[in-house]
């Protein structure tokens, strides 16, 4: 079972439906016990960083998410959920994140359109079970802030939007996707399947 962590932000329905379409059981839940018992967990999120962290703390789910990550079971942050994995963000003031990955989330700055909205292609930076055997393709992004991981080894894939933009991050069993795999057509579903495969032991972690 894959727990979709419900802390009152974002479009949980699409994520849970996408997981179900891959043949996995999905449970949208805010119950720490059920989250901790899950084979995999997804931290979704749409909206502002500060509000999301406030909700995660108010519901106690910040601690639950950290505890889950420490268990070594696969965790996937999507969009804002990915950004929350980092140390801090400058979105509408300074905010502390979950600090599962060291790094900072900053606003796009430059003479170009923000949000970065639409389909952009991935460039894989290093091997990962999350896209082993998969050819890079287009995925759907929509964000005004982007993550700057401190460790290059955490940066698994980027996309190009006037600069290299963090697209997939990962360390151990903690992963994040800046784009929406559940909104990225067949290719997005393939990436999501790679994640769900990890939760049912189909992944060979040595690569």
């Amino acid at each position, binding site marked *: 079972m894959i727990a979709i962590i419900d802390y009152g932000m974002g479009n949980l329905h*699409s994520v849970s439906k996408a997981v179900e379409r891959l043949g996995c059981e999905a449970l949208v839940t805010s119950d720490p016990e059920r989250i901790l018992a899950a084979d995999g967990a997804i931290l979704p999120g749409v909206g502002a960083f500060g509000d999301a962290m406030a909700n995660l703390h108010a519901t106690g789910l910040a601690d639950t998410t950290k505890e889950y990550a420490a268990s070594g079971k696969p965790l996937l942050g999507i969009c804002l959920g990915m950004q929350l994995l980092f140390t801090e963000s400058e979105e509408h003031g300074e905010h502390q994140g979950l600090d599962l990955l060291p790094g900072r989330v900053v606003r796009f700055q430059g003479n170009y*359109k923000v*949000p970065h*909205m639409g389909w*952009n292609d991935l460039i894989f930076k290093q091997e990962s079970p999350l896209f082993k055997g998969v050819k890079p393709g287009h995925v759907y992004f929509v964000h005004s802030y982007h993550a700057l991981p401190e460790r290059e080894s955490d940066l698994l894939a980027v996309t190009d939007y006037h600069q290299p933009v963090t697209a997939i991050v990962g360390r151990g069993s903690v992963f994040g996707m800046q784009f929406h795999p*559940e909104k990225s057509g067949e290719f997005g579903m393939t990436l999501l399947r790679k994640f769900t495969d990890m939760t049912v032991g189909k992944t060979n972690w040595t690569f």
Partner: protein
Amino acid sequence: MLAKRIIPCLDVKDGRVVKGVNFVNLRDAGDPVELAAIYDREGADELVFLDISASVEGRATMVDVVRRTAGEITIPFTVGGGISAVEDMKRLLRAGADKIGINTAAIRNPDLITDGSRTFGAQCIVVAIDAKFNAEWGEWEVYTHGGRNATGIRALAWAKEAERRGAGELLLTSMDADGTKDGFDVALTRAVSSSVGIPVIASGGAGNADHFADVFAEGQADAALAASIFHYKEVSVQEVKDKLRGKGVNVR
């Protein structure tokens, strides 16, 4: 590199697609969910549902359509039409819509843009602008109520205000080009797109694949929307994309 988006638009009334559609092998030509799934398979980058229901019951039905669609397709979709409160937005977003389009209600109450953006994030709020050239002004004027009512508001100024208030994107329809099939309004699109820092979807006037190339290259549009040429199979999404690729436009 960011791809240019092709967006089919479906008019939905009381939970049914209206205006003709001409697909083969459809179980039910009026089912928005089935049509959405077909466009997804054909390579559409996003979809727009325009709810033209006039009744409360019709609008309630839309929530169900949105919920079923979200479970069926793997691309983002926007719902517009008759949304006049943050509570309406919440209901549709919770049901699985990715973005909310607001038009007349935003003119009447611009705070709706601000409040929606603050509550759900800018990426959720699409401000739809229906514009028509006003020869006296030498620029475009905003219309509401499906293009029936002139507002006296200048389209460029309104586009900038919508951005300032937190719109994540603009859906710009040319009343002059709409229905002509003579091509998008390139001048209008370029004027708006070059004066705002958010993406602009061009709408109105698509008659063939070349028109899309024009509005991307000369009109500086980030996305282009069309209805009837796709519904009547005059050209498919894939044909438009092949044409664009041939002209060096980056598409998915």
